[in-house]
């Protein structure tokens, strides 16, 4: 403890004591967390547990992106929000920030009340060390992945629907690796047809399923920040809550043919495409099909 005093205040030592004593964390790991920043995109079913556990773990700074307001139908899974915030029509980013601050007032929280698009994504993403995709729609997933490749940020991507969840890390490279893992486009060079996409509004979701995936996203973020290898780099975790199945799938590395992370990229910081048009869908968990 004498040694800790030099580098971390007494309150932090007390607050983080249970993780400080773990050999893989220690004072050094805790300081790495306190110096790190994460951007959580979406303060919904996935984003709430991510924000909650990253705040508790003691990150330096967390950015929260969401343009929506809290609604009653959110509360069955978006557990940082409250009935009071529904009544006051509070923005989700504010509501989540309030809850995070109550838990740990030392964390700096940036609220971004906006919809990410090709005009603002780079400016926002570049301010953070790790990006967490907790969105609910296809165009946002392409947008965020492209931005992370172009700005060289690891992206922890989660999704959930009905009883199932998926998680993987995009555009990550371990210190001893030569090449990056895949980006979202490496796995999905072409967007799915709108009629094949089911969202939570029409497919439903059991609230605790994004809870589990969000917790795992937070865990992977912490590991990256303290210098421990993440577990779902070039792997996809597939979870089926109805049968309690977890499967870890070996996926491809980056693809030379990829238009953003490949050998001859056609997408650059100056030429981000129109993502809603590319996908033929709106960047929202709504049943809107964009006419091309």
């Amino acid at each position, binding site marked *: 403890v004498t040694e800790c005093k030099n580098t971390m205040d007494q309150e932090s030592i007390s607050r983080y004591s249970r993780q400080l004593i773990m050999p893989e964390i220690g004072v050094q790991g805790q300081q790495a967390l306190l110096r790190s920043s994460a951007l959580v995109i979406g303060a919904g079913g996935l984003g709430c547990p991510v924000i909650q556990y990253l705040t508790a773990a003691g990150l330096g700074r967390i950015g929260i992106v969401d343009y929506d307001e809290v609604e009653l139908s959110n509360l069955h899974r978006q557990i940082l929000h409250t009935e009071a915030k529904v009544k006051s029509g509070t923005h989700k980013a504010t509501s989540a920030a309030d809850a995070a601050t109550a838990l740990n007032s030392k964390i700096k929280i940036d609220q971004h009340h906006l919809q990410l698009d090709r005009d603002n994504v780079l400016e926002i993403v570049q301010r953070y060390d790790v990006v967490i995709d907790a969105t*609910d*729609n296809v165009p946002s*997933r392409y947008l965020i992945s492209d931005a992370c490749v172009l700005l060289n940020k690891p992206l922890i991507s989660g999704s959930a*629907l009905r009883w199932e969840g998926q998680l993987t890390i995009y555009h990550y490279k371990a210190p001893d690796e030569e090449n990056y893992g895949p980006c979202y486009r490496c796995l999905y060079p072409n967007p799915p047809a709108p009629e094949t996409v089911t969202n939570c509004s029409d497919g439903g979701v059991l609230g605790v399923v994004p809870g589990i995936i969000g917790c795992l996203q937070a865990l992977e973020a912490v590991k990256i920040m303290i210098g421990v290898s993440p577990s779902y780099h070039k792997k996809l975790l597939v979870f089926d809550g109805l049968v309690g199945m977890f499967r870890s*799938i070996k996926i491809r590395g980056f693809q030379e043919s990829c238009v953003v992370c490949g050998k001859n990229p056609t997408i650059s910081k100056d030429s981000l495409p129109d993502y809603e048009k590319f996908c033929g869908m709106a960047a929202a968990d709504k049943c809107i099909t964009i006419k091309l």
Partner: protein
Amino acid sequence: MALTVILEFLGGAEFLFGHVKHHTVSIEKGENKLNISQLLMWIKENLLQERLELFMQGCTVRPGILVLVNDVDWSLLGELTYEIEENDRITFISTLHGG
């Protein structure tokens, strides 16, 4: 000669196959090998109950479905040309986007 293959449909892809996630099938293939391209044709003719366009596009799976062979991305194994072995488990996972 027949080949036993385990087929799995996950992430919602099972809705196109009578809501059944796991199928063990026996495919008559004579003396020939069976690759995934041929397996897809077999599935189309024998298993797919409705709305082909939600599963296939042209001669391959539609965008948004990942194909796995024994829990490995088919992209690492030759995709459509991978030759299926006895008791291989071929999984089709629909990508989720919700959150």
